[in-house]
């Protein structure tokens, strides 16, 4: 079946890429895989329609992003409840530069992480990021600027003080 082959090719090519992007966004490989697998499962039942889209990957990414975002909000509520009962766990110190950026990204608000991951990690244009997140392009630009500034400041501090990112 031609359609099935198409979907399998699409799945094999896009899956790792999307998991990579979502892992950076959620900070958890497991959560990212779960969101991406669910998004592909939904895509599999709609493939007849999705295959004609200009970029089916954008559809899958949007579904995965929504799932991951709602999952993160749920986790955040759980965390808030937990921190009322016990002290927050200590994050491990970064071992290298890219770990420093990972810790820096985790410290950003979700909306800032989203634009950074889509703009730099998925290599989308500002307009594409805006379509993906369903926000105006001006909002994407301002979020990008703030996210860059916050992350840059954090990385500079981390460079000056080894062991800062704890």
């Amino acid at each position: 079946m031609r359609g099935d082959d198409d979907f399998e090719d699409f799945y094999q090519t896009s899956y790792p890429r999307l998991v990579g992007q979502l892992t950076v966004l959620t900070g958890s490989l497991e959560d990212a895989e779960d969101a991406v697998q669910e998004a592909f499962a939904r895509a599999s039942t709609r493939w007849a329609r999705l295959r004609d889209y200009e970029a089916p990957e954008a559809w899958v990414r949007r579904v995965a992003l929504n799932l991951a975002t709602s999952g993160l909000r749920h986790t955040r509520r759980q965390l808030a409840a937990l921190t009322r009962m016990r002290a927050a766990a200590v994050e491990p110190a970064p071992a290298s530069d890219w770990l420093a950026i990972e810790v820096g990204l985790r410290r950003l608000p979700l909306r800032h992480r989203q634009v950074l991951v889509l703009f730099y990690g998925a290599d989308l244009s500002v307009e594409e990021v805006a379509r993906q997140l369903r926000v105006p392009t001006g909002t994407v630009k301002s979020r990008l600027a703030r996210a860059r500034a916050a992350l840059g400041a954090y990385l500079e501090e981390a460079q000056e003080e080894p062991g800062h990112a704890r």
Partner: protein
Amino acid sequence: MHDELQRQIAELVADHADRATPPPIAAIRRRGRRRRARLAGLTVCTVVALLASAVVVPRLLSDRSTSPITRPVPTTTAPPTTRPAPAGQVARVPAGGFEIPLPTGWRARKVEGPPAERGEAIIELVPRRAMSLNAAIVLQTQILTPEQHPGLPPGEEPGGVASPEGLGFYSLDDRGRQLGRGRRPDGRPYVWRTRKLPDEVGEYAIAWPYHCHKSVACPPGNRWRVLVVHAGRSDDPAVRQKLRKVARQVVNTVRPITNALPGGDPAHLDPALTVTTLTVITTTGPRP
């Protein structure tokens, strides 16, 4: 800086992507099919529930409409009849010290306007379906003129009672007629106005004293506090009859909470009692 960030984030994404192993495509397809089956099942259940309610609800309503109508009780003599409060919705007014289980088909809303602006806790019950422009039952606490208070034993002179500062007493305007008197199943006495305007339904005042804890500043008007239940106006006799029934139900089912209960929470100061005229007493407030 810009390029460096791009490089680092892209490397991070690529690194995570390398570690991701896609599960077999068959597993993904199975997951998709299961989800579709679940959604289909949910849709079927929803449709069945909707159809069932579309059949059952009208039948229940028609059963209710064919049940015998209760004979109206004359308002000037008999005490209100007791009817079980419908389970579920309850409107609470902690400052007024009362909560009321809402009669079926009625809803509660806050009264807007000058009384509410003065901080008075007033709610009104209105029918969910409009019966008439003024079909409403208003509940609020007031400091009743002591001579009319249901807790004042017959023949006793209230003696030496002054009007609460700046407020004046509330009075059931009866133009010299004797008030109707009754007692709720829980023993709380109430009075009602026997004089009626042609289109008016009725007004009740239930003894609803404010209870203070020991060594707590206690408002002097606490003994003469009442919960006033005022059933609105209508020219339509059918509407008046319905209103009267519901008003009696309200009189019997409204429950004391917070400051209206001995040992209840006196933190909710009734706006009807002036804060500026507090006096310190050493015992709980007297019950009428």
